[in-house]
């Protein structure tokens, strides 16, 4: 793991010598039982362990497939898939009474090699954890621990040393682009909101990435919710808003709980509320749970949902930055974007050299041996991520990747030299969207994948505009016929035209991107589509 160089985030708590991941993946796999066993085991062992406050429960490390994870920070040993029965051996190792427990170390499924700590584990070693620097280190339910590791320091110095214009300027010069969607420049958006006329303004944290896969948002909320709260407060100060709304997916119940807890703690400690850090700035955050219709996180539908209405899209302009919640100028940023803000607005950045926003959180899943949520430097190629970080076999085992979730685009294996940044991907007509990288093995079928993704969009469609409401169903009908082998080659031509029409005529981003997987699939996986035609059916057998 690349060690963080930010001076505000280096502290560590002695009590955290043993940390157990308490993210939803690890909890689902039994982390709570492990924590209970560690606590009772530590009590039995007494003082020498120095874990008198119990093992530290930390947020998601992103290595969810290997949970529950137990990390011994002073020995740099990461134990994976730990069960209650293993706790005795782990404590023996920690106390120096036995050697490292080999069978609990991460074993790479492809090579069989075992990795001891974070530094040698390729999943962590190939990352540059900036936004995620506290995830897996800090106790997400303990504001004091977060503060000890640097949380709210940026807010404090912003309120005491910087005026709003200066902050917007810093964000502009950092080159931060919206981490999600098409990568709109964040500083520019902030400036528009700040300049829009109106007494009242709002900041909305959009936690509805609309991706049915593992996401940065969930990892951040579960691992370091205070980073997001702090980012929202700084955004509020910069654009002149006194109220924020955090819009979250209700099915990620742990993430919602952690966010609520963090906001309440921040309020208690005076990081939110009136006169924050003795300034004249007031800011509060309300948490809004989504009742299940995400519309892919589309901005105008999200505003309707927050206002207690049906979450349907509306035409733009007016853009939310000018007329959003209750007609007031509203800044909408994704959670990863907001978590970047405290890294940009810190005291040592006041000089000429602004710290560029240089990383992107990605989630890799599919045909890889080390799936998970990771943070990589911008400019890393997809091949490096798939091969080196996630352990996919790009020479023989990968058919292609699908980027950016349901509204995203598919690239073939020969296009993996594209890099994770906002320019390079655009030249492939792709954008990273939520940051999800779905790796397709040779046993996966691009037609089945497109059918799944389009059906997701069809379900999410708010129904306002016909191209999306009717078009997605028409695309599904085509895909059904292709899957069952009934389609002819002329159908592919018609399907492509239909998809392009949907893209050109839909009201919002959800509709415009709904058929993106089909358009790029037809282009980059043409052979797979054609092999389904004229009664031949699916070569992999998945479509049947």
């Amino acid at each position, binding site marked *: 793991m690349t060690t963080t160089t930010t001076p505000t985030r280096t502290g560590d708590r002695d009590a955290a010598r043993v940390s157990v991941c308490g*993210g*939803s*993946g690890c*909890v*689902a*796999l039994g982390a709570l039982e492990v924590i209970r066993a560690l606590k009772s085991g530590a009590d039995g062992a007494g003082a020498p362990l120095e874990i008198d406050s119990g093992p530290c429960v930390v947020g*998601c490390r992103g290595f*969810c*497939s*290997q*949970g529950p994870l137990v990390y011994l920070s002073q020995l740099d040993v990461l134990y994976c898939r730990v069960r209650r029965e293993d706790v005795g051996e782990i404590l023996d190792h920690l106390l120096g009474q036995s050697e490292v427990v080999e069978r609990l170390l991460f074993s790479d499924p492809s090579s069989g090699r075992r990795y001891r700590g974070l530094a040698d584990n390729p999943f962590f070693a190939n990352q540059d954890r900036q936004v995620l620097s506290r995830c897996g280190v800090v106790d997400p339910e303990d504001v004091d621990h977060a503060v000890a590791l640097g949380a709210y320091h940026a807010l404090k110095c912003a309120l005491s040393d910087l005026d709003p214009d200066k902050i917007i300027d810093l964000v502009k010069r950092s080159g931060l682009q919206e981490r999600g969607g098409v990568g709109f420049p964040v500083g520019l958006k902030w400036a528009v909101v700040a300049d829009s006329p109106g007494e009242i303004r709002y900041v909305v944290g959009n936690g509805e990435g609309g*991706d*049915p*896969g*593992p*996401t940065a948002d*969930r990892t951040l909320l579960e691992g370091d919710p205070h980073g997001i709260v702090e980012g929202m407060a700084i955004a509020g100060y910069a654009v002149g808003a006194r109220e924020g709304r955090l819009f979250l*997916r*209700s*099915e*990620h119940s742990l993430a919602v709980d952690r966010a609520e807890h963090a906001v309440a703690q921040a309020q208690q400690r005076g990081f939110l509320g009136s006169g924050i850090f003795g300034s004249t700035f007031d800011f509060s955050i*309300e948490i*809004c*749970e989504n*009742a*299940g*219709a995400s519309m892919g996180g589309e901005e105008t539908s999200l505003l309707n*949902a*927050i*206002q*207690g*209405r*049906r*979450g*349907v899209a509306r035409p733009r302009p007016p853009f939310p930055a000018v007329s959003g919640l209750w007609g007031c100028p509203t800044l909408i940023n994704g959670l990863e974007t907001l978590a970047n803000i405290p890294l940009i607005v810190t005291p040592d950045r006041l000089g000429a050299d602004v710290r560029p926003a240089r990383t992107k959180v990605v*989630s890799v*899943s*599919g*045909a890889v041996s080390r*799936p*998970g949520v990771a943070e990589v430097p911008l400019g890393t190629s997809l091949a490096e991520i798939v091969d080196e970080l996630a352990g996919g076999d790009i020479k023989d085992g990968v058919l292609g990747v*699908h980027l950016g*979730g349901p509204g995203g685009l598919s690239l073939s294996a020969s296009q993996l030299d594209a890099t994770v940044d906002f320019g390079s991907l655009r030249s492939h007509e792709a954008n990273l969207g939520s940051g*999800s990288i*779905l790796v*397709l093995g040779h046993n*996966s079928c691009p037609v089945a*994948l497109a059918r*799944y*993704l389009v059906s997701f969009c069809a379900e999410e469609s708010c129904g306002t505009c016909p191209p999306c409401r009717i078009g997605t169903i028409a695309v599904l009908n085509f895909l059904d016929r292709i899957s069952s082998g009934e389609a002819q080659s002329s159908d592919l031509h018609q399907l492509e035209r239909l998809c392009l029409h949907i893209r050109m005529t839909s009201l919002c981003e959800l509709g415009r991107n709904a058929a993106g997987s089909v358009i790029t699939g037809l282009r980059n996986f043409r052979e797979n589509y054609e092999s389904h035609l004229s009664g031949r059916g699916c070569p992999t057998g998945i479509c049947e």
Partner: protein
Amino acid sequence: MQFTDDITDSGFFGSEGGDGAEALDPAVIELVDELLVRAPSGREGLIGVLLALQQTFDRVSWRVQELVADRFGLSPAQVAAVVSYYPRLSAERQGRLKIDVCTGTACFLCGGEGVLGQINRAVDERRSVDGEPNLAVRKQRCLAVCGLGPVVRVDDRVHTIAEAGAAEGIVVGLVGPSPESEDER
């Protein structure tokens, strides 16, 4: 299995669809008013209140929607429009025992659709045997256990679906063996 379902089970909502003259149980009215105190002011609080009611009663019945509409100063149609739009709100009972099937992209790639079918079949079969009303199958977009997919979550525990018969096992684990199989014994 027992649930804190007294209010609904004792028929307070049972008479809806009749002449509509029956009053709601005072406890329900009290609950709604209590939720309103904590909710953000104005219409913004509507969805939060409806979600809380859905969680308590496993639905937001028409009578309760009318009550909520009255308290928010909206028409019943405006509330019904919201309830019918969001997948997590429903005027009909969904079943209290939720089987969450992950249909996220990673689980889909490893056969999540097939698992959803298996679970649905097992639940349908069970319903046809004893009319079991409490089971609900929900599609979830990602349960965050992407390396082990496809997975199913019941009561905060994640089950991996590797072996055949796992779907039936999950259903039996929730509602016990079916009366038929007990007869056989």
